[in-house]
């Protein structure tokens, strides 16, 4: 299930990156080629950046790819290391659940406000926070279950 979910998130993340690339390139081409500027391109591209970042964050959580300093951890005795890694995973899980829950509250709060350019309800861009932190939490649970079952 985790792998399938990851593939879906990667698909969405790739679409967001393509959208950023297309919108920013279009902005330059339209300005210098046709003397036109669109009010929505910058704002939309910024929101895609947030969505792409959080989608990538969930993916890297599953791949265990986030930037970290593992040097001390790697030198711990195996038994202590395994306990410490599980403790860190549980702590990260608590943080993700907290951020997803706070994100839902923030999304509801921001629903009444509109973005300055496109007049879009701000709950739409803000939805990335609860969605992808919830998905990241799912991936941490998956990792904890895998570790519990053993190699």
């Amino acid at each position, binding site marked *: 299930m985790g792998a399938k979910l990851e593939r879906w998130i990667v698909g969405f993340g790739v679409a967001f*990156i393509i959208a950023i690339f297309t919108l920013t390139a279009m902005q330059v081409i339209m300005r210098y080629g046709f003397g036109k500027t669109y009010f929505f391109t910058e704002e939309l591209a910024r929101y895609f950046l947030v969505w792409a970042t959080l989608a990538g964050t969930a993916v890297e959580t599953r791949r265990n790819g986030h930037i970290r300093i593992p040097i001390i951890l790697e030198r711990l005795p195996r038994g202590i290391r395994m306990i410490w890694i599980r403790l860190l995973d549980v702590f990260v899980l608590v943080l993700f659940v907290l951020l997803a829950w706070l994100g839902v509250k923030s999304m509801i709060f921001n629903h009444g406000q509109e973005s300055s350019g496109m007049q879009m309800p701000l709950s739409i861009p803000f939805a990335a926070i609860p969605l992808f932190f919830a998905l990241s939490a799912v991936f941490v649970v998956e990792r904890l279950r895998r570790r519990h079952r053993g190699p």
Partner: protein
Amino acid sequence: MSFTLAVFLGVFLLLMLGGMPIAWAMIGATVIWMLASGEVVFLAILPDRIFQGIDVFILMAIPLFILVGELLNTGRITERLVHVANQFFGWARGGLAQVNIGSSILFSGITGVALGDIAALGRIFIPSMVKHGYPSAYAAAVTASSSIIGPMVPPSLIVIIYGATTGVSIGALFAACILPGLFVGACQLALVRLQASRRGFHPVRADRSPRALMGSAGAAAVPLMIPVIILAGILGGLMTPTEAGSVAALYALVIALFFYRTLKVSDLFGVFSRTMGFSAKLLIIVGCGAVFSLVLAIENVPALLQSAIHGSDLSQASTLLVANLLLLLIGMFLDPTAAIILFAPILAGVAAEVGIDPVHFGVLMILNLNIGLLTPPLGICLFATEEIAGCGLGPLFRETLPFLLVSLAALVLVTYFPALSLWLPGQMGLL
């Protein structure tokens, strides 16, 4: 220092050095601080701070610059640049080591990340140098040491993060980093030349007739237009760094797909996917850094540091020395992105207080943190090249030491001769 600030910093260090991803260590320490200080009301703004930390126009340049590097790597255009560097730099003694450094200078205009340089060039140069009789630790040391030039010569992701964090002009920073970056490269080339005579490293054989050199320069001109587009676009005031990144990515896509035809449409999903993953790893630290800096601001850390500097009555020269030592220490433990997010706003403020030019200080911070990539205990570039060379960290560090000393000597000159950094942006009217 207040009790809650001590708890905050203690928890952050424990989590970060304990192996938790840096972004989550920042959030974890912040949540613990809120609980310890009774400021749980701030919990509600965590998602907004993360969102606002990422929702910054200039930061869009990061995935776009990474995309440029991915397109050129996957399209094997990097290998063409290596061939050109071979012809132009390989004639000297220690030719292959010189080519390695020369390629880093050429390639630096394309990726702007030290690890990107190692990933692309290390796998080409380390096996090749070993095949030509260089000790594997030396090959890894040259690759690791030259990779720190990349983030100095534009376009550089670190410069964008520094500019976005401190509000210093990115155009001015790009221009200011060029000469110090080239200077570090020149110092490393001179060191290799000295070592080559002593250790008997030979030049690389290649056709260096005027015709071959012209042909080679012509072939290199196509990919080397990328840094030109970016620099001319930004420094000429035609484009923002984000727009320059998108135009450069479009150019890289066109040359890789249609000019060289080394990139297939089927490769593109992987290119975009890797761009997303790498960007996310950097940008989530930026987003979580916005939360972390909120705590530092509430705890009044910038003002505390500034009053400490005032109280110590240090001269500008002494402040620069202390700043260098502090930054080297930070660079020994922290990834440059995280270090800039955490410390740049505070230290840049302190530097401005004692009259250090903000652009000059930006160059110093970036150079220091890059040198930190070569130092134990957390020299990421050393680990990355050791993984390719398999030479052991001990021998690798012994071979890296002369390069580290040369880079530190270059740092001293860049520190005390601000003109090295400020002359070029001054000439361009960017200061």
